[in-house]
C-alpha cells in the first residue's frame, strides 16, 4: 500500500496542509526517501554486531535456571582456568543498583544475592571466542537455595509475609508491590448512580513482547587512559551514559556511548541492560574490547514488554450516550523488576481521559512483582491495555442504547484546546476528522450490523502522548538539542543526539535543514547517537523525538539562516527578511531574478560572521498540568488522535479470525514526510493486530513441568503474523497542525497501535455476536467463546 494512496484529507483549520499550494513549504510534507534507506536496504548499514574491533573478546552471560532463589555461593575458578578465558565477572563486582526510573532502582548488572526469574543474569565471561565463552559458563558453579516463586500478580499482592520478591521499602510493607496509584476526578459513584446505563466488564490483556529483528548487542572498549566506550543497540544513549558512569564508577566525561543503527526496538531497548554493563566491566578487566550479542532466547528473558493487565471497568452514560462516569480497577503483572513500572502504573489510568469527555473518572492501579522477566514499555506504553477495555465498553454502551458506535464517539468528543478531567492540556485535536475518514473509507454505514453472519466491522478511537513534559530524571535542561555546522562546499552537518531506531529521525532532521536553509537534501549529513560529539537528546521513547528534536532543529536552522540572510542582505542592499533560501538558492523576495547559489550565500556569511554553526534546543512546557500528586505523569506538549475500523471474518467452526482490512486514520498534526507517517501507521496497526490475534508472552506452570519457564522463547513458537496473515492496511493521514509542533507535527509512531485491538474485538462481536474480553483472540479462545455462547458451525466460514 503506498502512502500516496493512503493520503487522507487535511483538516486544515489553522493552516494549509503540507504539500498543498499555499503552505509555503518546499520539502516538508512531501514524500521523500529516508537518508539511510539505501544503506539499510543494500546491507551496507553497520549494526552493532557488524562491528569487529582488533583483539575483540566475546562475552556470554550465565543465567538463572530458577524463578526465585538465593545465591548461596558462586565459584568461578574452573571457568577462569579454562584456556581462552580472559575474565569472569559476577554480581559482587558491580554491586550498585540501577533502574531507569530514579525512584525505583532495584536491579544489579548481575544478580548479587538473589535471582528473580528464569533467565536472570548471574555471571559473565569474556573469552577468545563464543564457543569458549559458552564452555566457560558450564564451568561456573552456583549454589542456589530455592525460594517460593510468585507467578500470579494477585497472589503476589495478597502475600502477607516474606520472602518477598524485593525487600519492602519500609518494614511491614509488601515487597511484592512496585506501585499503587489511586486517583479520582469528580464524583464517580454519584456519576454512576445518575447514569441511565452502567456497563461493567472484566478484561484481560495478555503480556506481549517487542520482537525486534535485531537482538540486543553491545561492545565495550576500555582504553588504558581511563576512557570507556560502549557501542550499544539502545534507544537511550544518554541514560545509558549516565548509568554506566554511576554503576561502574567512571567519570561520565570519560564515558562515550555510541549508538549504531538499531534494527528495531519498540521500547525493548529503552533502559540499560545487563550486557552493556558486562561488556564495559569485562573490557575494564581485560583491556580488550568485548562484545556480547543476545540470543533470541535472551531477548525474551530481557523482555520489558507489555504488562499483562487484569482490568475491571464500570462505565456510565446518559440515555443519549453521553459518558457520565468511569471507574477502573487494574492489576498489573510487572515481572521481576520495576523497569518503567512506576510510570506504567500511572499511564494505566492517566492516558484514558481523551478523546472523550468524562465528567468523573477514577482509577486504582496496582503493579505487582512476579518471578518472570520484567515488563516495561512497549509501543503505546501503559495505555494500550486500558484502551482495549474501554473501547469495548463504549461498544457495549452503544449497543445498549442503540446508538451507532461512531456516532457515540462523536457525541463524547472532548474537543480541541481544552483540559481533560485529570487536567491534561489538549491543544490540537483532529479526532472527529479521524472518525469521518474511517467511516467514509470503510463504507461503515453500509456494513455495521448489516454484513452477513460471520463478517463484521468494528470501530475504536484513542489518544497518545507526543513525549512527556517531564524528563525521567528531574532537571531543567532542554529535552533535546542539536548542532549544525556548515562547510564551504554548501554541505550542512547535523550533530543529533537522537536515536535512529528505524523510525526515521535522521531523515526528519535532514528534511528540516533542507527546508530551512534551502539546501538540497543530499547536501545534509547527519551524525547521530554519539555522546562524545552530539548534544543530548533524551532518547527514542514516548513518541517524543519528532516533536522535540524537530523543534530543536528548527531553532538551530533558523539561527543559522538569520546569519546567512544578514550577510546576503548586506551584499544586495536589502532587508534580511527579503532574502529567501530555497531550492539551492538564495533569492531576493519580490525580485526572483536576483539570486545566488546557497553555497555562495554560506560563504558570504562565513566571511562576515566567522565559522558557521548553530545550536538549537527544545524544552517542554512545565506549567500545564494539574496540582495533584502524579499530575505531571501523562502531561505532554501535544496529543495525537487515532480511529480505526477493522473488518473481520470469523470461521465459526474453527475460531479463526481473519482480519481483512484495517482503516487507520491518525491525526499526526502535520505529516513531515507522509511516506514515513504512513509507515508508522501501518507498522503500529500491524503490531496491534498481532497482539490481538496471536501474541502471548506466557510461562509454564508447576503442572507444566517448571513454574516460570518461558512458554516459547523463540520466533517459531512465539507467534507474530507473517506477511500472509497481515491484513490490508489503509492509512488515512489527518493533519490538525499543532500550534507547538514542528510545522504543526505530532507523534505517529505509537498512537496508531491502540485502536487495532478493540476495533478487532468489536468487529468480532459485529460478526458473530460474541464478546472477546481476553486477549489474544486466537482460534482456540474464539472457538471456546463461540461454544460457550452456543454459536456453532451451522454456517461454515472461510476454509483454510
Amino acid at each position, binding site marked *: 500500500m503506498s502512502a500516496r494512496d493512503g493520503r487522507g484529507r487535511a483538516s486544515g483549520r489553522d493552516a494549509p496542509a503540507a504539500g498543498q499550494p499555499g503552505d509555503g513549504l518546499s520539502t516538508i510534507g512531501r514524500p521523500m526517501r529516508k537518508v539511510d534507506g539505501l544503506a539499510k536496504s543494500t546491507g551496507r548499514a553497520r549494526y552493532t554486531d557488524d562491528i569487529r574491533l582488533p583483539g575483540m573478546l566475546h562475552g556470554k552471560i550465565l543465567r538463572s535456571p530458577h524463578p526465585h532463589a538465593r545465591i548461596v555461593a558462586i565459584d568461578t575458578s574452573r571457568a577462569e582456568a579454562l584456556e581462552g578465558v580472559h575474565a569472569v565477572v559476577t554480581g559482587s563486582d558491580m554491586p550498585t543498583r540501577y533502574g531507569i526510573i530514579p525512584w525505583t532502582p532495584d536491579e544489579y548488572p548481575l544478580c548479587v544475592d538473589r535471582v528473580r526469574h528464569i533467565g536472570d543474569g548471574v555471571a559473565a565471561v569474556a573469552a577468545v571466542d563464543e564457543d569458549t565463552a559458552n564452555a566457560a559458563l558450564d564451568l561456573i558453579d552456583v549454589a542456589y537455595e530455592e525460594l517460593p516463586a510468585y507467578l500470579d500478580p494477585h497472589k503476589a499482592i495478597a502475600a502477607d509475609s516474606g520472602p518477598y520478591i524485593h525487600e519492602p521499602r519500609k518494614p511491614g510493607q509488601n515487597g511484592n508491590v512496585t506501585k499503587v496509584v489511586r486517583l479520582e476526578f469528580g464524583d464517580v459513584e454519584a456519576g454512576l448512580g445518575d447514569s441511565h446505563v452502567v456497563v461493567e466488564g472484566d478484561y484481560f490483556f495478555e503480556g506481549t513482547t517487542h520482537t525486534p529483528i535485531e537482538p540486543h548487542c553491545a561492545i565495550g572498549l576500555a582504553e588504558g587512559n581511563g576512557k570507556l566506550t560502549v557501542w550499544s543497540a539502545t534507544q537511550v544513549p544518554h541514560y545509558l551514559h549516565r548509568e554506566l558512569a554511576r554503576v561502574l564508577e567512571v567519570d561520565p566525561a570519560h564515558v562515550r556511548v555510541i549508538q549504531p543503527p538499531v534494527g528495531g526496538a519498540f521500547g525493548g531497548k529503552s533502559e540499560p541492560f545487563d550486557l552493556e554493563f558486562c561488556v564495559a566491566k569485562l573490557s575494564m578487566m581485560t583491556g580488550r574490547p568485548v562484545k556480547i550479542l543476545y540470543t533470541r532466547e535472551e531477548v525474551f528473558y530481557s523482555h520489558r514488554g507489555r504488562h499483562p493487565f487484569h482490568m475491571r471497568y464500570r462505565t456510565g452514560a446518559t440515555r443519549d450516550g453521553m459518558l457520565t462516569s468511569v471507574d477502573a480497577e487494574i492489576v498489573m503483572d510487572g515481572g521481576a523488576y520495576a523497569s518503567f513500572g512506576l510510570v506504567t502504573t500511572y499511564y494505566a489510568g492517566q492516558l484514558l481521559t481523551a478523546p472523550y469527555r468524562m465528567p468523573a473518572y477514577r482509577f486504582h492501579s496496582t503493579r505487582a512483582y512476579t518471578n518472570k522477566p520484567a515488563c516495561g514499555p512497549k509501543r503505546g506504553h501503559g495505555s494500550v491495555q486500558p484502551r482495549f477495555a474501554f473501547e469495548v465498553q463504549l461498544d457495549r454502551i452503544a449497543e445498549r442504547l442503540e446508538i451507532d458506535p461512531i456516532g457515540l464517539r462523536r457525541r463524547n468528543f472532548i474537543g480541541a484546546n481544552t483540559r481533560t478531567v485529570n487536567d491534561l492540556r489538549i491543544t490540537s485535536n483532529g479526532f472527529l476528522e479521524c472518525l469521518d475518514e474511517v467511516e467514509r473509507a470503510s463504507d461503515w454505514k453500509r456494513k455495521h450490523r448489516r454484513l452477513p453472519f460471520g463478517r463484521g466491522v468494528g470501530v475504536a478511537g484513542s489518544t497518545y502522548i507526543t513525549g512527556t513534559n517531564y524528563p525521567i530524571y528531574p532537571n531543567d535542561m532542554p529535552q533535546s538539542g542539536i548542532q549544525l555546522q556548515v562547510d564551504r562546499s554548501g554541505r550542512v552537518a547535523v550533530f543529533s543526539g537522537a536515536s535512529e531506531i528505524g523510525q526515521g529521525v535522521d531523515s526528519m532532521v535532514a528534511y528540516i535543514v533542507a527546508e530551512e536553509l534551502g539546501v538540497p537534501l543530499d547536501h545534509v549529513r547527519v551524525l547521530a547517537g554519539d555522546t562524545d560529539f552530539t548534544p543530548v537528546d533524551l532518547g527514542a521513547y514516548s513518541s517524543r523525538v519528532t516533536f522535540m528534536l524537530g523543534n530543536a532543529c528548527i531553532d538551530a536552522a533558523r539561527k543559522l539562516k538569520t546569519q546567512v540572510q544578514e550577510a546576503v542582505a548586506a551584499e544586495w542592499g536589502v532587508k534580511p527578511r527579503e532574502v529567501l533560501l530555497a531550492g539551492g538558492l538564495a533569492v531576493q523576495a519580490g525580485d526572483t531574478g536576483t539570486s545566488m547559489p546557497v553555497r555562495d550565500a554560506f560563504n558570504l556569511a562565513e566571511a562576515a560572521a566567522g565559522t558557521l554553526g548553530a545550536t538549537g534546543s527544545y524544552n517542554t512546557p512545565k506549567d500545564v498540568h494539574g496540582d495533584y500528586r502524579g499530575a505531571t505523569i501523562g502531561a505532554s506538549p501535544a496529543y495525537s488522535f487515532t480511529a480505526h475500523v477493522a473488518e473481520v471474518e470469523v470461521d465459526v467452526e474453527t475460531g479463526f479470525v481473519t482480519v481483512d482490512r484495517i482503516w487507520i486514520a491518525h491525526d499526526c498534526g502535520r505529516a513531515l514526510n507522509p511516506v514515513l507517517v504512513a509507515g508508522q501507521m501501518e507498522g503500529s496497526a500491524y503490531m496491534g493486530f498481532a497482539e490481538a490475534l*496471536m501474541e502471548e508472552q506466557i510461562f509454564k506452570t508447576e503442572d507444566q513441568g517448571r513454574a516460570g519457564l518461558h512458554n516459547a522463547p523463540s520466533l517459531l513458537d512465539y507467534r507474530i503474523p507473517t*506477511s500472509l496473515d497481515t491484513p490490508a492496511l489503509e492509512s488515512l493521514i489527518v493533519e490538525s497542525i499543532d500550534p507547538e509542533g514542528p510545522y504543526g507535527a505530532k507523534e505517529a509512531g505509537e498512537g496508531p497501535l491502540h485502536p487495532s485491538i478493540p476495533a478487532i474485538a468489536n468487529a468480532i462481536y459485529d460478526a458473530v455476536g460474541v464478546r472477546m474480553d481476553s486477549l489474544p483472540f*486466537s482460534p*482456540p479462545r474464539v472457538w471456546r467463546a463461540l461454544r460457550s455462547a452456543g454459536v456453532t458451525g451451522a454456517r461454515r466460514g472461510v476454509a483454510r
Partner: protein
Amino acid sequence: MLRLPPFRYHRPGTVDEAVALLGEFGTEAMPIAGGTDLMPNMKHRLFTPAHVVSLRGIGAMRGIEVVGGRGAGSATPAPGTEKVLRIGALETLANVAAHPLVRRHFPGLADAAGLVAGPQLRNMGTIGGNVCLDTRCTYYNQTSFWRSALGYCLKKDGTVCHVTGVGRKCVAAHSADTPPNLVALGASLTLAGPHGERIMNASDFFVTDGIWNTRREPDEILTGITIPIATGRRSAYRKLRQRNSIDFPLLSVAVAGDFEETGTVKRLTGVVSALGARPRVLAGWSELAVDGRLDGATIDALAQRAHAQCRPLDNLIVDAEWRRAMVPVYVRRALEELTES
C-alpha cells in the same frame, strides 16, 4: 546467536560411500540433506554428532520421474509393471510442490510439500528429510539452557515426560507434512544400509515411539520414494496451524481415494497426524465409504469416525481440546476437496 556444536563434515558422492561413512562412525555420525531440521536441533544440543554426512553430493538421490507400465501416459500397464512416480529423496520440497507430475497425480502431496515452513526453507529442505523429520514437543525443541531449567525430558537427557507426567513413553508429535500423504497414497520408501537396499511401505515406516519414530536404522539412508499411479485417484491435504506460513502442523489430514468415473468410491484412506508420534491411518473408513458416493452424509460419518479415534495430548503449545475438535472439521474439509476435484 546460538552456536552449532563442532563437527566434521563429509560429502560423499554415492549412496555406498555415504552408508560406509555412517557405518564407520556409528553413533557419532548423522546424515544431513537440507539441514533445516538437523541444524536447529544441533544448535539446541538435541543432537551433537561428531560427524555429519552430507547427502547433497549424491546425484542418484535426485529426480522425479514416472517409471513402469508401458511408459508414461500408458493407460493399461502390463501386470507386474505398475506405473509409479519415483521421487529422489534429495528433491527439495519446493521442487516437489511445483513439479508437474506430482501436481497432476498427487495434488495432496504437492500441497503438503508447499505448506512446509516458508519459501527459503522449502528451497533447502528435502522430501527425504521431511519424511525423516524428528518428532516435536514443547518440552523438547528448546535450547539446552531452557531444558536444563526444566530438568530435561524423557526424549532427551531426562527421565520424565512432562506431557503425561510419567516416564514410560515419549509422546512427541510427528510433525512432517508429506508423510501422511505418502501413507494415504500407498507409497513405499527405499532405504539403503550396510546390508544393501530394502523397501518398506510408508505405512509401516512409522512407529509410536516419540523418541525415534521411524524404522530407519541410524546407519540407513532414505534414498527414494515410490508412489503408485492409478487412474481415478484423488488426494487432498489440510493443515491446521495458526499462521499461514512457517508453522508446523497442529493437526494434519491427508485423504486419498480411488473413484469410478461415476463417482463411486472404490477405495478411500484417511490419515491424521501431528497429534501423536506417528501418522494414524483412520480405521473403519472402507465400510462407510466404499461402493457408495462421497456425499455430505458419508463425509460427516467419516469425520465423526475420525474424531472418535484422535485424542491429542498437550505436546504442543496449542490447546489440545481445540486440536481434537478440529479433527472432524479438517477431515470434512479435506474430503470435500476430493469431491470437488
